[in-house]
């Protein structure tokens, strides 16, 4: 039996594989911008809405508003009309103007709390993660703080202090700090066991350098996502505090205040409550969508959903 290398092959004696049809429709490839929108619709939607609200807050005086504090006893409790788009309250103040200006209060509290609690939480988390003896102490303290429901904690703080925007931000910040600290501590602990951090420590790199080079860049993504969610919950908390009378002083138009003022009349004059409620819900929704989008975009491994 002899074997031979294939002789001069011609098309006729070649075995050709049968060409098979495609069983799935081809997948359309889009441009980078459209791909981004298609993959992160919540991110784009949330960011867009939030941008619009920031513009509203900044441009409030030029959006056809009146002085939100101007009393007009002659025009009390007018339903929405061409003159007063959202109607007037029991003191005759223009609800549209108050709601538009209220955007400022809500965004200020939201951004203020997320910034402050991130910074303080970052500091606490870093100390707890790097200074071993302090870890147990700090974390037990955080456990204690965390076991007080945030709304009650903020209420307790506000009963003992003068109602002002700054105090509201502080009170909510204190309620949110444990969450950020735990997150940062978790990241620090998981990173500290990484071989490259061990190597850096073994090479005598000083702790601040390790923190700046290896730890901080890795905390950025989870912290941004967390800060977004904190922003949303701070806005709701502010509204709750104002609504129960422990929040921003009535002189500042905030959505919670407007709703608190409309509370007694909601069965007969529902519009007083309706418009601030609509704005508040939209804003919180925008921030939450942004948070969901950021989480998916920053960490593709994470399961979409929570």
């Amino acid at each position: 039996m002899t074997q031979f290398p294939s002789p001069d092959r011609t098309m006729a004696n070649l075995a050709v594989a049968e060409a098979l049809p495609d069983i799935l429709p081809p997948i359309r490839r889009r441009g980078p911008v459209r791909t981004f929108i298609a993959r992160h619709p919540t991110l784009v939607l949330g960011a867009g809405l939030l941008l619009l609200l920031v513009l509203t807050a900044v441009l409030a005086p030029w959006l056809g508003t009146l002085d939100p504090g101007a009393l007009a006893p002659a025009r009390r409790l007018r339903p929405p009309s061409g003159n007063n788009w959202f109607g007037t309250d029991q003191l005759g103040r223009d609800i549209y103007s108050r709601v538009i200006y209220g955007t400022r209060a809500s965004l200020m509290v939201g951004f203020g709390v997320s910034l402050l609690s991130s910074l303080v939480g970052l500091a606490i988390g870093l100390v707890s993660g790097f200074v071993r003896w302090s870890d147990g102490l700090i974390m037990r303290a955080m456990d204690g703080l965390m076991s007080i429901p945030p709304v009650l904690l903020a209420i307790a703080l506000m009963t003992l202090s003068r109602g002002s925007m700054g105090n509201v931000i502080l009170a909510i910040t204190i309620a949110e700090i444990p969450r950020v600290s735990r997150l940062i501590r978790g990241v620090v602990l998981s990173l500290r066991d990484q071989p490259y951090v061990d190597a850096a420590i073994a090479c005598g790199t000083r702790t601040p350098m390790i923190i700046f080079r290896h730890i901080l860049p890795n905390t950025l993504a989870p912290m941004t996502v967390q800060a977004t969610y904190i922003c949303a919950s701070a806005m709701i908390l502010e509204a709750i505090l104002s609504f129960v009378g422990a929040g921003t002083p009535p002189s500042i138009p905030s959505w919670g205040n407007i709703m608190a003022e409309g509370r007694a009349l909601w069965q007969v004059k529902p519009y007083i409550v309706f418009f601030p409620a609509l704005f508040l819900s939209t804003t919180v929704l925008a921030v939450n969508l942004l948070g969901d989008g950021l989480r998916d975009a920053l960490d593709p491994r994470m399961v979409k959903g929570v």
Partner: protein
Amino acid sequence: MALLEVENLQTHFRTPEGVNRAVEGVSFHVEEGETLAIVGESGCGKSVTSMSLMRLIPPSAGRIAGSIRFDGRDLLGLPEREMRSIRGNDISMIFQEPLTSLNPVLTIGYQIGETLRLHQGLSAAEARAKAIEMLTLVGISEPARRIACYPHELSGGMRQRVMIAIALACNPRLLIADEPTTALDVTIQAQILDLMRDLKQRVGAAIVLITHDLGVVAEMAERVMVMYAGRKVEEAPVAQLFKTPRHPYTRGLLGAIPRLGSSLTGRQERLAEIPGQVPSLKNRITGCVFAGRCSQADEICRTIAPGLETKAPGHFAACHQALREEAPS
């Protein structure tokens, strides 16, 4: 008629980057009581082929086309409900990683009995008795006590025995074993292979054995099919494949086996490896899929995809360059 006849099987997945043609035009058959091994590197479509046989590819992920005839019935045409009554009953599967393949929060007794209650309508007590019997069969001591155990309380080898007990509980006619020994210690591997051979004789099921371990192939299989980049590139009876591999890819695979004692002979033989890597399946490939890594590839190989042709009786390969046995004149 063969027990299983697969023709032009295609399994394609949707991915954001394009369609992944994981299995493209694979045909083979398995006779009653026979063991067919499917070999190839990881990512060559072996596992996808086995999942396709059971129709375990979720429709949201991809599509299966071609024909899979089991005992004369076309599985791809069956309604899902009838397919479910075949899974775990007529065809069952053993997976690679026994720790993750067993449900950690259910007792092994429940997991064995579940199939029996489902397919044979046994009562809980009957299923329990049969589960104990199955555990005895796969060589687990104190079965009556062990059925109340959770998977994490058993060793790796025992877990794989439990997997085998689950797979064989309903006396299947076809057993698909997807890398059944890869995750186990070498000594345990041998025990599990012995067990499978022994049980195969007793139960008489045909086996489709998926592996990348040619040692396991030599020990277990009667026929071998080699896959590369989602295609079948060679098929032959096991002895013949080891003796005269026809496809350059198969020769590469065989060359990659470390041989015992090679370092003692003084010749520092390097473990052969096949240069290059498996081509991306997300674009249509013109010509032979192996051409990019093949030392013999020429212009024809790069332009015309080779079909399977008979290189010797019972020996098929898809290669323009492969030697053909001259027909006796």
